[in-house]
Each structure stands twice: as structure tokens, then as C-alpha cells.
């Protein structure tokens, strides 16, 4: 399972942004109920170029420019979802989920349960998160914990172009609200993407690399940093497994636990602030499991600092884990234990 894209499937090199656009194209073509709305997704092509020129292919009925009204956009998505449509809403930055939170947390997440299962909310909310662009504190947060903490929401964090497409298509199939947290720094990265109607199932982690000395679990942009760190570690004789959960909720804890049981050491890497970050949950799952008995070292988390993201480039860099931090933390785990 190390290689994502199964041998023999037809693939094409695309950027992460192009892969999302391809998913939108596929979904809009195959299902009349699918449409997307958001700020500047039409002629502008999206703040990060995700929709590009898609408006020319699908038109303004299926790709709708909205006013600057995040609560309204998500709420309209909820209303459309419970009445037979398959809406995708784009929040220009995941930070603006704060504006939309009532509709996300109190409405979308709970309607199915509150109504005794009478109604489904097949809504997809796409939003870019993360730091690294100098956009400062209100445009750089990693907020996955907000969503993971709310029963009723599913949460995915694609780390590769193929998953950006595959997870979005799978999210659209799901009868529940799914929050898709993309990463700004990944939009321009490229990789092999399966062509056509190719899904990445929700709730299945990807083992990006296999090694016997320790397990690194990383999300979002930290996946590629962990892979780079793993290369450097390998050169120094340390053999790391890298796991990308892809779906944070429901989490594929089986894959993580099996790997940690085998390696006996685990480093959990996230960009988000550490306190009650998603990796705290992963650490707790490990601590509560059989795997605990196989640990040869304490569970380690490597997280963003507990601070708002600063503007200055050096400060911004210092605020979140970098490749060298991952290498250092992994080396310490292996050599000290």
C-alpha cells in the first residue's frame, strides 16, 4: 500500500489545484445535483487558482460566485443539501470558518442526528488552511481540531494531488457533511493523479514510506516535510515509516497502531498549535491501546507553537515544524531510547 496510485491505472501529472479542479469537473459532469459556490470562484478563478477557467466549462449556474458572506454560503449549502442537491462550498481561507461556524457546527453537523435520521446533509466544505505565505495571524491557521471535535462532521486533509482529487470525490459521495482542509502551500505542488472518476476512500490512511525504526504520523503539508526528513534520516541509518492519515475523522487508527506496534516509536507531526491539537488524540489512542505495551520510547508530538502565526518570514518559519525539526526529533527518539 506504499504506492498510492495503483500500478496500471492511467495517471496524469497535475498540480494539487488542478487535481481539485479535475474532481469538480468530473463531479459536475456526472451528477446534476453537484454545484459549487464561494467567493471569487468564477471569473477570478479562485483566490488560489483552484477553479481557474472552470467557469467557462460549467457556467455560472453550477459554479456560483457569492457575496462575502461565509455564514450565508455554508447555510445555503446546508439548505440545498437537505433538499436534494450535492453542494460544495468553498471558504476562501479556512480561518473564515469562524464566520460560518454556526451553520457548520450547530446546523450541518447535527441535523441528521437531531431529526432522528430523517434527513441527510451531504455537504462538502472546502477550505485552505496553513501558514507559509506571509498572510499572518488571521489567514494562516490550522484549525482541523475545531471540526474533528464536532460529532457529525467528517474531516479530510489531502496531502497529495491524487488525494486532493480522490478525497473530494469520495466526500461528495458521502451522505454526511465533510470538511476538506486543503493547504495553501500544496496548491502548486504536482504529482501523478488518476484520471477520470477516481476516488480515495474516506477513513483509510496511506503508508507513504515503510521503515522499521520509528513511525512518523503527519498531516497536511507536514507529510511532505516528513518524507523529506525520512530521506535524510535514511542517509543517517534511521529507517522511518511515514503515515498520512488523510482522513482525520473517521480515523484509520488500525493502520497507525499496527505500524507503531511494529516500530515501537512514534513521532506525531502537525502544523497546528500543539495544545489539544489533532495529534493529542492520536497520542491518546496509542496510549489506550495494546500498542502501548510495545512502545520503546515515549510518544512524541511535534507541533506548531501555541501562538498566532506571525507575519515576518523568519518568525513564521519558527512558528511551525520544519524538516530539520522533524529530523532532530526523530533522531532523538531513536538514539535516546
Amino acid at each position, binding site marked *: 500500500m506504499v504506492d498510492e496510485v495503483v500500478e496500471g491505472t492511467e495517471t496524469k501529472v497535475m498540480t494539487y489545484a488542478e487535481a481539485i479542479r479535475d474532481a469538480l469537473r468530473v463531479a459536475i459532469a456526472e451528477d446534476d445535483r453537484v454545484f459549487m459556490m464561494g*467567493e*471569487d470562484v*468564477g*471569473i*477570478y*478563478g479562485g*483566490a*488560489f*487558482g483552484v477553479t481557474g477557467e472552470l467557469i467557462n466549462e460549467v457556467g455560472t449556474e453550477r459554479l456560483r*460566485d*457569492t*457575496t*462575502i*458572506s*461565509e*455564514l*450565508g454560503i455554508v447555510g445555503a449549502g446546508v439548505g440545498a443539501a437537505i433538499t436534494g442537491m450535492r453542494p460544495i462550498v468553498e471558504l476562501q481561507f479556512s*480561518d*473564515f470558518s469562524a*464566520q460560518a461556524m454556526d451553520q457548520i457546527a450547530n446546523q450541518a453537523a447535527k441535523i441528521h442526528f437531531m431529526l432522528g435520521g430523517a434527513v441527510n446533509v451531504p455537504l462538502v466544505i472546502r477550505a485552505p488552511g496553513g501558514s507559509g*505565505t*506571509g*498572510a*499572518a*495571524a*488571521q*489567514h494562516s491557521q490550522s484549525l482541523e481540531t475545531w471540526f474533528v471535535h464536532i460529532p457529525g462532521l467528517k474531516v479530510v486533509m489531502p496531502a497529495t494531488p491524487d488525494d486532493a482529487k480522490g478525497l473530494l470525490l469520495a466526500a461528495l459521495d458521502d451522505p454526511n457533511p465533510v470538511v476538506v482542509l486543503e493547504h495553501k502551500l500544496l496548491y502548486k505542488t504536482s504529482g501523478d493523479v488518476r484520471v477520470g472518476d477516481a476516488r480515495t476512500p474516506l477513513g483509510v490512511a496511506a503508508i507513504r514510506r515503510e521503515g522499521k525504526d520509528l513511525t512518523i504520523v503527519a498531516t497536511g503539508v507536514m507529510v511532505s516535510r516528513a518524507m523529506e526528513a525520512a530521506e535524510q534520516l535514511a542517509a543517517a541509518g534511521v529507517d522511518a515509516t511515514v503515515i498520512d492519515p488523510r482522513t482525520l475523522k473517521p480515523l484509520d487508527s488500525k493502520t497507525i497502531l499496527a505500524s507503531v506496534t511494529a516500530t515501537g516509536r512514534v513521532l506525531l507531526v502537525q502544523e497546528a498549535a500543539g495544545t489539544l491539537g489533532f495529534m493529542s488524540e492520536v497520542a491518546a489512542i496509542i496510549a489506550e491501546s495494546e500498542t502501548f505495551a510495545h512502545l520503546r520510547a515515549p510518544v512524541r508530538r511535534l507541533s506548531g*507553537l*501555541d*501562538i*498566532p502565526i*506571525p*507575519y*515576518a*518570514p*523568519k*518568525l513564521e518559519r*519558527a*512558528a511551525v515544524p520544519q524538516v530539520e525539526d522533524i529530523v532532530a526529533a526523530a533522531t532523538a527518539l531513536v538514539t535516546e531510547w
Partner: protein
Amino acid sequence: MNPLAQDAEAAKSVLKTMWMIRRFEEAVEDLYGRGMMHGTMHLSIGQEAVPTGACLALNKDDYITSTHRGHGHCIAKGADIERMMAELLAKESGYCRGRGGSMHIADTTTGNLGANGIVAGGVPIATGAALSAHMRGTKQVAVCFHGDGAMGEGAWHEGVVLAAMWQLPVVFLCENNHYGMSMASEKAFNLEKLSDRAKGYGIPGVTVDGNDVQAVRDAVQEAVDRARSGGGPTFIEALTYRWRGHSKSDKNLYRTREEIEEWRTHDPIPAFEARVLQAGTLTETDLEEIRNQVRDELRSAVQRANAAPDATADGLLEAVYAS
């Protein structure tokens, strides 16, 4: 009160402020283009008459709340351009010690409660500052600068509703530059004038030519006088135009080159210069002197800002909570 163009001191100050905003942002654009600045930039070139005219109606201790496109508000309210530039250049001497950048510059000493990365984020905050002024009995007024696009946000609605209910001393000043990013305001809102909305909130509303510094000053003065004397909030729509793209990612696909060119002929700065010359208040030599003075002041501010030490990551963890 004399018209601004007929009063030599007032005319000089208006021109100095407008030119400073223009030249400051041109310098920012240049530094950004040369890779010396990080992040993104929202420039207000072409819109200088709005903050300049509005702040003429304010006292130093009156409040403003600003936006992502806030350099002009900050300068017009009296901020130090070296510290502004230092912030953009990620220096320790910047207004926010390099932690905030362009979208978060604030200068509380001149009543500027801050730019804002969140569209309409400043609207309820302005209401709160006006509430505070009212409760403390200070006679201070708050001016809330916001864009046309901000009027799509729930925060705008809620901030205005509270201010109207309590008849607070706040002026909601909409810089209608015709677009919220790519969304044309005439498409976004089914209104002939955005000020038509004021009636629905039970407050006075007026639309003025935002490229006419006199018209802006007069409208804001009237609103500020009313607010200060207990007459409650006012909504003002100032019609203007953003010459540059929304930010650095803008390819200007949603508007035509002709439209941009047409608006450039309504440049607020030469328009006011022409009026001053026509009134015989200042001579062409005086005008030249103002421009040169602004250029020199800015140049030396940029040099000093650039020579200052970079912002440091030391103490970031202690920077989050006040003690």
C-alpha cells in the same frame, strides 16, 4: 468654514496626506516587486481622498477602525510612516514588531484601532469603541472604514444594528470602490445606492463622490457633528475606484482595461490640485514643493526602516498573553 481649496494651510495638509498615501503605496509596490516584502499587499491607490477627507473631520483622540486596505487610513489618521514601513519590511521597529504585517497595523496613539484581515471585522469593533466613548462620557467619535464587499457580511449587519439601537457616536464609512475582490458591488447588492440600505437600519445615509476630498470631508463632518452631539450613527457611501488589482494574485479578469483607464482620469489628487490653483490659494511652485517634500520624507523613512534590525523570534511564546 472655508472650502479646503481656499485655505492655504488646509490645502497643503490635504495634498501632503494624499501624496503621502500614493507614494507610500507605490514604494510598497516597488519593494514587493523586488522581493523585499513578504506576504500580500492590498493597495488603495486611486482612493486617497476618502481617508484624507474623513480624517480631516476627526480629532486626534477620535477612533477609526480600518481594513485590509488600510495604509491610507493609517497615514491619514497621523501614523508614523517609518514605523509603518518597518512593519511591512518585517522589522522589530515596526508597529507590530513584525508580527502583524500590512493587514494588522494599528496605531493606538492616533486612535487607529487597527487594520483587519477579516472583512467587516472592524464593524462591530467600531460600534464597541463608540459604546465605550459613550459610557465614559468622552465625546469621542468612531469612524468605521469598510469596503462595499463588507456589506455582505453578518458582522456588518450586527454592528450597525447595535449602533442604531443605542444611537452610538459612530460613522460607518463605506469605501465603495465598485468591487469586493472580483464581485461588482452593483451585482452583489440589489440597490441603486448602497446608502439606500441605511433607511432599513433607521439611520441617515448619504452617497458622495469619494474622489472629491471636499465632499468626503463635508459628509463626514456632518455625520461626526451629529454623532458627537448625541444624534447617533450615520452611514456614508463614498464612491471611488481601486486602480490596482485586489492583491497580488489578481489578474483583473472581471473588469475591462477601459474601465480602469476611465477611472484613472478621475484621479483625486490632480483634481484637488487644479482646484487649489484655480482658487489661487497655492502656486504651481508650492505644489511642486509639497510633492518634493513628500518624496524626500518617504525616501528617508524607507531607508531608515530598511536599515533597522529584523524582527526577532525571541519571546514569541511570551507575546501571546498580556501580563
